[in-house]
């Protein structure tokens, strides 16, 4: 495969690596590892830990037998482990491969000025997925590019009477938080976003209040724009149910679009083709399509290219010849390209050619990521200690966006943030 591998000679031995990925993602990642194993003779033991990754890793570190390499989904863990000296600095190990990442990403993998991780996989949470055929049925031919256009299109689709404009993922609130974060970023920019994330900006500030107000526009009065109304959104909005109403595996869609990150791709049934061609139909049986657009900013906003996202950062926990080789391999563009090629994957690795992505949707996604003016990490994940409370608060506002309730909840959030973050 890549020339980077051809150079390395057979090392042999084995190395263990943990990540969240199970099921399809696990198979994809194993495909990424295959050429590495072939060329180095190293056997890689991969374990997918799912949502218990953090706990399992904490335990493994505490238990004294951590995996050699681990990929975790949040920068906080990296900081914690670095503080405990449980992970190794990477600069000298991966050498020039560290330059494959933009400064925003490197900063997120740096602790006390040392690089401890490489962001192997990234997710763009600005992505909005929509069913082009539904848009067309309402007489809309192109995706909205501004916030006001999005609202207009929503009304149009609603008036059509057959499809709900939005299938809102609610779950325990994290998708709503994502939605809020998107909107906040597009309305107020990355600087304000970072201030809010660290609670330097108050939740009771007008920026937040405005964002909530705009969000209420999006959902419509008592959830008029949402699939099943507010009640339906809350009842059926659990992940990934919310996606199947836009991209059903059989029958017809009931909603036009769904907000979530690009990892939603893996929940789109395989018979959907990416793009917005003229052949797209409403029936899941004939040729259905999916497409995305970037979460729109108000017309003329300076923050249109700011991106909110997340990712998986690879860290080295035990330093052996094999593990070093593996992390270096993960940092290389050839590793990321393999998965990119398989789809449902984007990497912040600049060296991965856009051509590696199989379709227009992921290409656009990757382009957005790499061309981002500013990149912010998902804000809720940084709210250690009150993240679930934040999600609950988001659901609260979603259900009752009245000014008085917003004021109450904002005050509550400030209290919670102060209690958890100490300021």
């Amino acid at each position: 495969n890549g020339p980077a591998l051809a150079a390395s000679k057979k090392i042999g031995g084995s190395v263990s690596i943990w990540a969240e990925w199970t099921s399809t993602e696990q198979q994809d990642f194993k495909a990424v590892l295959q050429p590495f194993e072939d060329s180095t003779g190293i056997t890689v033991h991969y374990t997918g830990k799912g949502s218990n990754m953090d706990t399992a890793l904490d335990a493994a570190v505490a238990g004294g037998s951590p995996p050699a390499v681990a990929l975790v989904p949040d920068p906080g863990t990296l900081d914690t482990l670095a503080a405990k000296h449980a992970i190794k600095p990477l600069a000298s190990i991966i050498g020039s491969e560290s330059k494959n990442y933009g400064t925003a990403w490197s900063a997120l993998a740096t602790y006390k000025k040392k690089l401890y991780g490489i962001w192997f996989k990234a997710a763009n949470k600005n992505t909005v997925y929509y069913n082009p055929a539904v848009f067309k049925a309402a007489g809309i031919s192109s995706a909205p590019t501004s916030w006001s256009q999005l609202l207009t299109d929503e009304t149009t689709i609603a008036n059509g009477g057959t499809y709900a404009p939005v299938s809102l993922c609610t779950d325990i609130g994290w998708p709503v938080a994502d939605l809020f974060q998107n909107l906040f970023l597009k309305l107020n920019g990355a600087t304000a976003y970072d201030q809010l994330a660290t609670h330097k900006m108050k939740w009771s500030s007008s920026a937040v209040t405005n964002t909530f107000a705009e969000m209420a526009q999006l959902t419509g009065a008592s959830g008029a724009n949402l699939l099943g109304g507010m009640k339906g959104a809350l009842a059926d909005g659990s992940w990934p149910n919310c996606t199947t109403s836009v991209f059903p595996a059989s029958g017809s869609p009931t909603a036009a679009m769904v907000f979530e990150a690009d990892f939603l791709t893996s929940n789109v049934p395989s018979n959907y083709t990416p793009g917005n061609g003229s052949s797209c139909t409403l029936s899941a049986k004939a040729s259905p399509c999916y497409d995305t657009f970037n979460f729109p900013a108000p017309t003329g906003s300076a923050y249109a290219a700011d991106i909110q996202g997340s990712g998986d950062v690879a860290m080295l926990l035990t330093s052996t010849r094999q593990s070093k080789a593996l992390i270096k391999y993960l940092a290389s563009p050839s590793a990321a390209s393999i998965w990119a090629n398989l789809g449902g994957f984007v990497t912040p690795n600049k060296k991965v050619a856009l051509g590696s992505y199989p379709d227009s949707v992921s290409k656009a996604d990757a382009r957005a990521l790499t061309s981002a003016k500013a990149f912010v990490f998902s804000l809720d994940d940084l709210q250690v200690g009150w993240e679930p409370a934040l999600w609950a608060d988001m659901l609260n506002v979603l259900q009752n966006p009245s000014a008085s309730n917003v004021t109450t909840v904002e005050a509550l959030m400030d209290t919670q943030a102060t209690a958890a973050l100490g300021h």
Partner: protein
Amino acid sequence: MTIDAPVKENRVGGLAKRLHLSKAVVNVILALVAIFWLVPTISLLVISLRPESLFGVSGWWKVFTDPSQLTFGNYSTIFSQGFATGGVLDSLLTSLEITIPATLLVTMISCLAAYSLVFGSWRGRDMIFFGIVGLMVVPLQVALIPVVQLYREMGNLFGLNPYGTIPGVIIFHVAFGLPFGIFLMRNFLTGIPRDLLEAGRIEGAGEWKIFYRIVLPLALPAIASLAIFQFIWVWNDLLVALVFLGGNVHSPLTIFLYDQTRSLAANYWIVSTGAVVSIFVPLIVFFSFQRYFVRGVLAGAVK
């Protein structure tokens, strides 16, 4: 025969009928309960037999009008890996490797401890028992990390770190099964007449003999229940195995099923399939222990 019939007719009047009726009522009530209990179970089974695409789209009961919806697709997905390491059968074995020792140990240690608590004469029995019941409430989650650290200390001290090994998982399960086990056995053993133990003692049985020749046989119904539950709990555990097995290549069935689901949410059709697959062993366990629930185990023992 013909002469007998009218006599029989007269003598019991409506009373026998009333008795029969009450028996019928019991049967009807229990049948209703059984149906109530079965509906979810059947729906789980049906969900596992319907294709993924229909989940959440239409009611599972539709299969009864449209049997063409039935498919073994979910099962073939699960069984696709076969016997290989990481396959479903390998996981089944691993589950047994964990569950059987954990069940045996909990049952044995609980019985021993309960015996001591009930029939021992040392002071402070009540306090110890009190403490043990208190431990039932300790959420398993809070113990994970301290125990892992403890394992590492063991590794440092004795060169044997159970972390990442199957014994490590078993040790943890046993510890968290014990409070309930002891609680159950103790309360059950209080029902065994002391005279029986004393008879054994007089006949020259040591405590051990009394324990396993007299008390254990009499406590079989309780032991069977404890074993059933312990087995089921360990069998269905996911969290402990995930945390304690580390990178072990063999993983129990729960982890295997968990792996079939995607990282951000459960694939319910696979979960249901897995649930159906994973209940067979516990059901066998249940049925084989069922026969120990004999009525009147203590009948005829004392006046």
